[in-house]
């Protein structure tokens, strides 16, 4: 039989044998599929807005934009500006609450 077209082997078979999904990936999928990730994100958004964290971040952005000129700024720039300060300044009670909920989910879903 002549193969008229060069065709790589069908991926499915190869993939299953090469890579097993990590625990992280499995849990991530479960989070998303159950809708819990969405709920957690909304909750976190709400908490961060209430405590003024979001406003702080927006103020940082505005200051940076003002300094650099609004036509020279990219989204990437802004992400790099906010991320270190943002991660560090989440209030403890907010972080604790979210971590608790995530852990509860892990306990209930990780079987």
């Amino acid at each position: 039989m002549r193969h008229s077209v060069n065709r790589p082997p069908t991926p499915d078979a190869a993939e299953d044998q090469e890579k097993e999904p990590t625990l992280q990936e499995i849990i991530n999928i479960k989070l998303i599929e159950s809708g819990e990730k969405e709920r957690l994100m909304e909750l976190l958004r709400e908490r961060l807005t209430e405590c003024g964290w979001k406003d702080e971040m927006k103020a940082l952005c505005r200051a940076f934009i003002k300094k650099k000129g609004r036509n020279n700024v990219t989204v990437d720039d802004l992400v790099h500006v906010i991320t270190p300060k943002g991660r560090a300044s989440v209030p403890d009670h907010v972080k604790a609450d979210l971590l608790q909920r995530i852990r509860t989910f892990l306990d209930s879903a990780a079987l």
Partner: protein
Amino acid sequence: MSASREDNTSPDAQLSSHFFGDLLDSIIVDIASECHRIAKLGLDRNLEDEEEELRLSTQARVRAADPSNSGETNSKYVVDIFGQTHPPVASEIFDCMNCGRSIMAGRFAPHLEKCMGKGRKARLKAARNSSAAQNRYSRGSPASTYSPYSNSTSTNRLSNGSTGVAGEELSNGTYEEP
């Protein structure tokens, strides 16, 4: 998943932190994107405009605090924060609701004084119309412009109120003569 319970504390905490970080990163990207959009579309009150406004308001404040500008006499030359100048005397004309005449806004207060009570004719008129209410008015204050019972003894006070202009207005006689 066959992870045993004992192993769960440390990797579990790590896992939770990982997912928390994940959520946080998404939110950060959202905020960055939102700010970027607002900046690019100029929706946020333009930053340059803000600085311009600040500058203008400090200028205005300096001018207002400047002692060489006495408010009344120089009001023709002072520009307010909206860039408008106002004439020293308000020049709009409208109708007095008491007597129905056309009055210039800047002359309205003195007109009202005569029209409503301080002048001789108005007071006489008020006295006739409200004799029953005489007793209720405050009698004690000589400064009161509404003393309706002061018909006969009022000659002294009249001379205060009637200037040359007032004389003109009253003698035009749009009030009913008592």
